[in-house]
């Protein structure tokens, strides 16, 4: 039977042995270190993507349909190219004729515009929309406010900017009330959105790098020749399918699509994000799993090798311990603990490396290393240590004491 003494003695011996061979022990754990770094970073990225997905989903809003010339996911873009543009007038008509919607919001966008404040500048999308955008997006500015109907109808040069735009242009200054230039035109900043994070470069769904201005103003400054999106948020408590069919029917009539022909517009929802997310996560998962398994395998073989060396080097010590009354189980345990301890140190080293890396990831993709992955990494490390230590430890345990003592 193993006693507590065996345990503490085992740890003590292990630490002494590892301390005596610092460099060797560190090099041996390389595989474990890489394995743990990959696992933790993978989990961190997936977690961050999940958070970004949630943000994106909520920023797109549940129960919100996006009527557009384009299909966001799937569909045939070459067909879509020949479709009529979706116009502000169609949006206005839908708002009047379709009664099941809580809000029908036109959004028109232009990409890669320059935002300037003092000597700083960044690029991003500019969107023209109406105050009800707050309803369809489900997001209100973190600082300041969205523009109101008066500003909207009058086409006032005001804007709400995304978090990254604010950070890059203003650094520590308070943006509210300041005037920035968008493509050379002056706009007063009246609101800032909170950070959302970018989901897989689907930057068009993240408000972080964008600015929002009144539709009237947009059309005046940037022209009327763009196809727009219409965001439709349904009333609560409706039958979703009925409401959707009704919406499509109404919009077909507005667009003059003859019965029997397919829609000449895309009906998009946030669901596609989930599909992209799932496929990306499973790709990361598979690749990460392969790299992790490989490095753990290499690490395990390394540990096994070094444990064989350790057992060989300490043959005389094993003989001595046996002469003093150590049982096979005590010796077995001693070397298992040593292997596990080396691996745990590798695991801790891996965590020490991946922690700062996860903070860097956090800068790009808001995320946190999940706590469970820390526990998982250490458990995996211990398991690798035990598995690869078992054969060398067993070799040590079953040594004949006389032979071990004679070993030079």
């Amino acid at each position, binding site marked *: 039977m193993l006693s507590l*003494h065996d345990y503490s003695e085992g740890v003590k011996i292990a630490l002494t042995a590892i301390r005596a061979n610092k460099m060797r022990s560190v090099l041996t754990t390389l595989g474990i270190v890489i394995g743990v770094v990959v696992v933790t970073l993978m989990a961190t990225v997936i977690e961050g993507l999940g958070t970004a997905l949630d943000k994106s989903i909520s920023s797109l809003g549940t129960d919100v349909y996006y009527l557009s010339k384009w299909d966001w996911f799937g569909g045939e873009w070459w067909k879509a190219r020949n479709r009529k543009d979706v116009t502000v007038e169609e949006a206005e008509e839908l708002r009047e004729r379709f009664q099941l919607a809580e809000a029908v919001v036109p959004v028109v966008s232009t990409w890669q515009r320059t935002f300037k404040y003092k000597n700083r500048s960044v690029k991003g999308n500019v969107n023209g929309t109406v105050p009800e955008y707050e309803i369809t997006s489900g997001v209100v500015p973190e600082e300041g406010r969205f523009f109101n109907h008066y500003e909207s109808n009058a086409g006032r040069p005001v804007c709400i900017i995304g978090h990254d735009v604010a950070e890059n242009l203003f650094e520590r200054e308070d943006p509210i009330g300041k005037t920035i230039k968008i493509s050379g035109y002056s706009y007063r900043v009246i609101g800032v959105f909170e950070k959302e994070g970018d989901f897989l470069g689907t930057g068009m769904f993240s408000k972080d790098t964008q600015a929002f201005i009144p539709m009237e103003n947009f059309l005046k400054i940037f022209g009327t020749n763009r196809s727009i999106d219409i965001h439709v948020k349904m009333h609560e408590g409706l039958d979703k399918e009925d409401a959707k069919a009704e919406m499509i029917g109404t919009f077909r009539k507005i667009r003059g699509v003859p019965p029997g022909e397919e829609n000449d517009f895309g009906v998009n929802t946030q669901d596609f994000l989930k599909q992209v997310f799932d496929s990306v996560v499973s790709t990361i998962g598979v690749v990460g799993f392969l790299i992790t398994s490989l490095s753990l395998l290499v690490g395990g073989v390394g540990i096994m090798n070094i444990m064989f060396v350790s057992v060989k080097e300490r043959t005389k010590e094993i003989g001595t311990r046996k002469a003093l009354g150590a049982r096979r189980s005590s010796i077995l345990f001693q070397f298992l603990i040593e292997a596990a301890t080396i691996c745990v140190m590798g695991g801790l080293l891996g965590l020490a490396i991946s922690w700062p890396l996860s903070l860097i990831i956090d800068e790009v993709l808001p995320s946190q290393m999940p706590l469970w992955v820390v526990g998982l990494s250490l458990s995996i490390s211990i398991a690798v240590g035990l598995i690869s230590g078992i054969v060398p430890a067993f070799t040590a345990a079953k040594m*004949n004491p006389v032979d071990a003592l004679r070993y030079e």
Partner: protein
Amino acid sequence: MPLIHIKDVVKTYDMGAELVHALSGVSLDIEENEYVAIMGPSGSGKSTLMNVIGCLDTPTSGLYQFEGQNVGDLDDNELAEIRNRKIGFVFQTFNLLPRSTALHNVELPLIYAGMSSHRRRERAEEALTAVGLGDRMTHKPNELSGGQRQRVAVARALANNPSIILADEPTGNLDSKTGVEIMQLFSDLHTQGNTIILVTHEEDIAAHAHRVLRLFDGKIASDEKVESPLKYAQSV
């Protein structure tokens, strides 16, 4: 009942091409509190006999009873237990753990005996003090002289209060003056009631014992009582 009862013990090593008879029919009894020196030329089987007595090795044939118990019937754990509680080994090459302090080295058998850390520390300190190393407890082997190292080894052998001390050429790696110091320790232990068996090449070391056993070619060539064993004081 003798402490050690050995009857017709044979130990043969199969070296493939030839059989090496390290022990070829040894019979011998040792009583409690005897002080036995085993002598004989190199290769005569002294170490092999010690290993059998110390339960480190099992004879090829023959009977070995320790405290009336048939050692051949014991399993691995029971043998470990006997080595731990009944036998104290002292080796020619000291065999101390190089990276551990004197104190921890002496604690080793107590750890395997499952003694609490508080008690074993006490015991180890006692044993080290008894061999005159009370002021060297936290030294590591490479910070100690050869004689001091061997004294740590003696303290380690004593720590668990064994019934018998087995020493295979304990002074073999020491100069004669330090050797005498170690012999003084053994004489003291013997006076206190311990059983001592030691292997030596040197007549003046063997002269401390009360009985001298001579091996030749794996057999006992002579077994004599010593009329007036040397006291350590006389040999200095």
